[in-house]
Structures are given as structure tokens and as C-alpha cells.
């Protein structure tokens, strides 16, 4: 898909993204000719097996990785680094341990020079939005992993990005917390009509939340298929028990199974080679 072919309301366009890394064994193509677009207010998930270049793509779109070919366009502007319209939520725990919950969430507001009283008021609004009211004066070390991720989410939302970019934000959490946090993200996304791009390897999570799912192949990461998720909104985690949900999960797993198998065989081959080399 080229930028010209993208719908008029596309807020994010990735066009022919190619990322190569130099390794001692020669260059490896991590992402190969990946093109897609995200419409305003849409929830798009990118799913693929481990090693398919999802996080590399996250870094390219977030402007954290400069060494790639192709083009990322945000609101008509080609990006060449982190863009103010993109807010990122990382896979790893990324709260500032020396700041309270309020001060963490107020961080982007502090950067734009918002007066203290106003930024605390704004921060409290986003803290409430992620359901952490009552914990405003706690430090991240006093919170659970799921709560810390909600602080990171609130901090990113406080910067009021046009596009919310999340890299497996619930990967380190248990399944129940993951489902409940998924509910929270859905609720916020629906309330704010927030354009969201989620990188994940969890099929349930992707189907639960997305309007479309982009399935990637194992290395080199290419677009295998884009699946439209035609499930009613507003959604909650209750949708996981519906028949239609099960059909989407099965369809995506069919696409992913072959890729995941290929990844597993590749890892086994590498392990054997390393063992022989030793």
C-alpha cells in the first residue's frame, strides 16, 4: 500500500519500511517492505511471532531508530525522529522511581512549562482516567506492575498525543491483570477516541481491542495479512467468550502458527550451531 492509496483520514502512514542490522554473520533484514496506515480514532494492532521485528517497527514509528529505509508520515509530515504527535508506552517498566504518581504523570506538562497548580490538576484527571485515584502521592516502588504500567499510560496520555503507540505494554503482567488492563485501555480509547497502535504477540489482546490487526511474518518481518475485526463497540473483556471472537482468534492463529513454527525451528537451528561452534 502506498501513501497515495491511503484513505484521506489516515493520520499515520508507514511506507515501505526496511530495517537491516549488521551482525558478525552479515546483514539481517529485520523489517522488510512493511506498509500500512492508521486512520484517525482507529485501534490497529500489529501482531507477529517473537523476532518478527515488531519492536523494531515500534522504534521506527516512535522515531527512536533512525537507520531505516522508507518513510513514516504523521499527519502529512514525514518524521525524522520522535514526533510530538506520537506518545509511546514501553514494554519495560518505565515510570520514574524518584517521582510520585502525580509527578510522573505531570512530567510532559512540566516540559511544556504548564504552571504547577494547573499541571497537578491535569495529572489528577489522567490518574483518575486510568483508575489510580487515591494513589497520587505514592511512589512507583509502592505499586504493583499493572499499576505502574497504568502510570506510564497516564503519563503518555497527559501529553495528549494524536497517536498512542504501545509496545506490548502488558507483556510482563499475569493474564487476569492483562485482561482487566485491556478493558481499561479500551475504555480510555473509546472515551478519548484515541488513535492507537498496539504492538503485541497476544492474539486475544489484539482481537479484544482492535479495529484491524496486521499480522506479520517471521524474520524478515513482512505484512502477511491485515484482518478487519468486525466486533461491536463499545467492547469489554466479556467479548472474549463470544463465538465471533473465537473465530477471529482461530483465523489469526492459523496465520501465525506457520510463522511461529518457522521461528521456533530457526531458534533451534541457531542453538545447535552455537553448540557446535563451542
Amino acid at each position: 500500500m502506498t501513501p497515495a492509496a491511503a484513505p484521506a483520514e489516515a493520520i499515520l502512514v508507514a511506507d515501505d519500511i526496511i530495517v537491516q542490522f549488521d551482525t558478525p554473520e552479515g546483514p539481517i533484514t529485520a523489517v522488510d517492505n512493511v506498509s500500512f496506515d492508521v486512520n484517525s480514532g482507529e485501534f490497529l494492532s500489529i501482531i507477529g511471532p517473537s523476532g518478527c521485528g515488531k519492536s523494531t517497527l515500534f522504534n521506527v514509528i516512535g522515531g527512536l531508530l533512525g537507520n531505516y529505509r522508507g518513510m513514516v508520515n504523521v499527519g502529512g509530515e514525514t518524521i525524522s525522529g520522535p514526533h510530538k504527535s506520537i506518545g509511546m508506552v514501553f514494554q519495560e517498566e518505565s515510570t520514574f522511581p524518584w517521582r510520585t504518581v502525580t509527578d510522573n504523570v505531570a512530567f510532559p506538562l512540566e516540559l511544556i512549562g504548564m504552571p504547577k497548580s494547573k499541571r497537578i490538576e491535569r495529572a489528577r484527571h489522567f490518574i483518575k482516567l486510568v483508575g489510580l485515584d487515591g494513589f497520587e502521592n505514592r511512589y512507583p516502588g509502592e505499586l504493583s506492575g499493572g499499576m505502574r504500567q497504568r502510570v506510564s499510560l497516564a503519563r503518555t496520555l497527559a501529553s495528549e498525543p494524536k497517536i498512542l503507540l504501545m509496545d506490548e505494554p502488558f507483556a510482563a503482567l499475569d493474564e487476569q491483570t492483562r485482561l482487566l488492563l485491556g478493558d481499561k485501555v479500551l475504555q480510555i480509547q473509546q472515551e478519548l477516541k484515541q488513535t492507537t497502535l498496539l504492538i503485541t504477540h497476544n492474539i486475544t489482546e489484539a482481537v479484544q481491542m482492535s479495529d484491524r490487526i496486521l499480522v506479520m511474518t517471521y524474520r524478515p518481518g513482512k505484512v502477511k495479512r491485515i484482518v478487519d475485526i468486525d466486533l461491536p463497540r463499545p467492547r469489554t473483556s466479556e467479548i472474549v467468550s463470544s463465538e465471533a471472537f473465537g473465530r477471529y482468534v482461530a483465523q489469526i492463529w492459523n496465520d501465525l502458527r506457520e510463522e511461529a513454527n518457522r521461528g521456533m525451528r530457526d531458534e533451534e537451528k541457531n542453538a545447535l550451531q552455537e553448540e557446535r561452534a563451542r
Partner: protein
Amino acid sequence: MTTGLSRSTGPRPDYAAPLVGLGSFIALLAIVEACIRLGLLNRFIIPPPSEIIASFGRLFLEENIVHRFFFTAGECLVAGVMVTVFGIAVGVVMQRFNLLQRACETWVAAFASAPLVLTYPLFMVIFGRNAWTIVMMGFLSALPPVILKTIEGISGTRKVLINVGRSFKLTATQQFWKILFPAALPTIFVGIRLGLIFALINIVGTEFLINFGGLGQLINDLAERYDLAGTYAAICFVILVSVLFFMTLERTERWLRPVD
């Protein structure tokens, strides 16, 4: 339902370890006292603990120990401020420029284990027999741990925190003050704590060697007068000050370190 039998389930302070520690110390003093009185130890080398304890009052009334304590504390404070400002700055610059770090880090680490107190004649020549020589000795000995821990703290900042800063388009200065420095602060404080302990040891040592200043000079004076009980009492006072100093720094460091 609450009853008269309900009890607080909060953690109780554990007094056992400090009480056993204090008891062991008193027992050791009693053994030394007995050995001296029985003639097993020479009282002209080690005075009886009872005489040492009795000398404490004399130190306060006749030897101006409080004034001397504040003199030494002042030297430590000046050396501490200097080492904090200069040590952190040097650490930051070394961490910032990779070549500088690779070229100098081993030298700084070597300095940390060198007996720097032996360089006091050099500083006597430069500054004369005054407080600056003592302060410089304290400063120099405290410098390596502060530099090394500053490098370690900044280098150890988690990449994801740096990426958060980049995603918010922080400038290099904002990235340093808002992310790198606060993230490194607990580690830097470990360096400052170690540095200040080294500074205190070297300051008292230099005061003793050049017979100038506060507590170190007092020990020298008392030793030259062959006032053994007074000398040991002054040494005990310095040890007590060091212990309190160490405990205060440790508590500050714990307070500064965020909960993990």
C-alpha cells in the same frame, strides 16, 4: 469486632542485636580492665578502661574537645562540598566522553586504593601548615569514589528511561537533569558516603601528622604529653563521631534511594 484483647500487629523494633553488641563491648572492657589489674597487660601501654572513661570529662572541660570537633567537622564540610561539586562534575564529563573515561578510569580507581595521606608534605609546601592542607588531603582522598560512582550511576541508567525522555523530545540538558541525574543519584550518594568517610579518616590523620586543627591534633597533643588515658579517650571520641557520621549518611542514603 474490636475487643480489649486486640493487639497491634505492626513490626516490633528488634533491640536484641544492639543489646548483644553493647553487652559484648562492655564484657570486652571488663576483660581488659581485669587483665590490667591482674598485671597481664602493661598499664603504661594500655590504660585501664575505667581511667579512659574518667578522662572524658577532662576532654570536655580542659581540652576544648567540642571546639576541636567543630573545627574538624568544618574541614570535613568544606572537603565534602568540594568533592561533591568537583567529583560529580568530573564523573559526568568522564562518562560523557567515552575516550576520556577509557583513558582515565583505571587511574582514578588506582588513586582510590593509594595511601594518599603520604602526600601531605606536598600540600604543606603548597598551602603551608594550615587548614587548607588538611582540607585538600580530605578532598583528594574522597575524590575517586565520587567520580567512579558518578560514572557508574549515569552509565547504569535504564535504557527505557532514556527512551522515555527521547519520546518526549527532551533536549540534552533536560535529559541530564530530568532523567540521568535523578536516576544516578542513589549510586552517586554511595560514592559521596564512601568519599566522606575517606575524607574524615584522612583529615583526622593529617591533623595528627601536621599537629594542626581539631581532633587529630588533640590526639597528637595528648600522646606527646604521655597522657595515655586522655589519648585513648580522644581516640574513642573520634571513633564515636565516625560511627554517628556513618549512620547518618547511611540513613540519608536509604531515604534518598527510591523503593524498588
